[in-house]
């Protein structure tokens, strides 16, 4: 009977350790939005996309450092219409890291994105359209997210000493 109890105890402790050791990785960008503007670059017109979103660290004791990844905006058919590589130095527990990136697209590259966001190219060029849009959650995904997980106490201790 004691052997049985030992097994139960070990299993419970292992489960507890597994539950506490797992740090949750961010899965979705928060409030993703873009502002698209038309700019002149030499002879050509380019579409400057200012992309903004948040990446939340929901853990209470794990900080993320040296974060890099790619955010993909896809149209409803699943085709990638905008790729945003990003880097963040750190996201502390309960914090939301802000990704702010500027991507330049040619007119041809911008068309699928403008279609997805229901923005008329002509109106954007004429200034009738401001080019601000939120991106629906189903059209955006974080890909190739790399980050280092670090215990917050260890991280803060390295800053204190």
């Amino acid at each position: 009977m004691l052997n049985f109890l030992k097994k139960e105890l070990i299993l419970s402790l292992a489960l507890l350790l597994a539950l506490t050791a797992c740090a949750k990785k961010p899965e979705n960008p928060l409030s993703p939005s873009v502002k698209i503007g038309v700019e002149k670059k030499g002879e050509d017109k380019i579409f400057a996309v200012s992309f903004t979103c948040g990446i939340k660290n929901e853990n209470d004791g794990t900080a993320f450092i040296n974060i890099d990844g790619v955010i993909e905006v896809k149209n409803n058919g699943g085709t990638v219409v905008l790729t945003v590589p990003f880097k963040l130095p750190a996201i502390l527990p309960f914090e939301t890291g802000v990704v702010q990136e500027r991507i330049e697209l040619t007119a041809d590259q911008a068309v699928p994105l403008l279609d997805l966001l229901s923005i008329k190219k002509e109106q954007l060029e004429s200034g009738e359209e401001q080019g601000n849009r939120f991106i629906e959650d189903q059209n955006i995904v974080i890909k190739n997210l790399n980050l280092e997980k670090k215990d917050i106490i260890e991280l803060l201790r390295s800053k204190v000493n």
Partner: protein
Amino acid sequence: MKKINDTKIYIFMIIVPLVIAVLLGGISLYSRLVVEPKAKTLISSDATMKEGYLILREPQIFGGYKYWDSDGMAVKNSLRYFDNKIFNGGTITTDERVYLELVLKRRISGSELGIKSSFFLLIVSLTGFFAYITERKKNKSK
């Protein structure tokens, strides 16, 4: 009808709550007698407030920072604030001590809950012990 021998059930009833009570009680008493006084002393001095915060940053088992009740929201905001401040090389000022005390209070509540839960589990274990003795006496008298 054959009388069922319940002694095995009572042994489980004694051992399982007792093991949990010893674990929880040990951790909570350690927090109460060692960690909390140390943290309190450290946060009372301006020079050692950061050290005190680092001790408090490790949550007590029953006062975990991921469980958010209404009282916990203020603690969450304090943690976010102090983490950010220390990470960016800032200093904790005397005016901010009150927020450190809030985190300490959370830890004290956690250890209190741990100690009370241990007492409850010890009572369950003790009840199992008396039931076991009674059952054995009954079985012997047959």
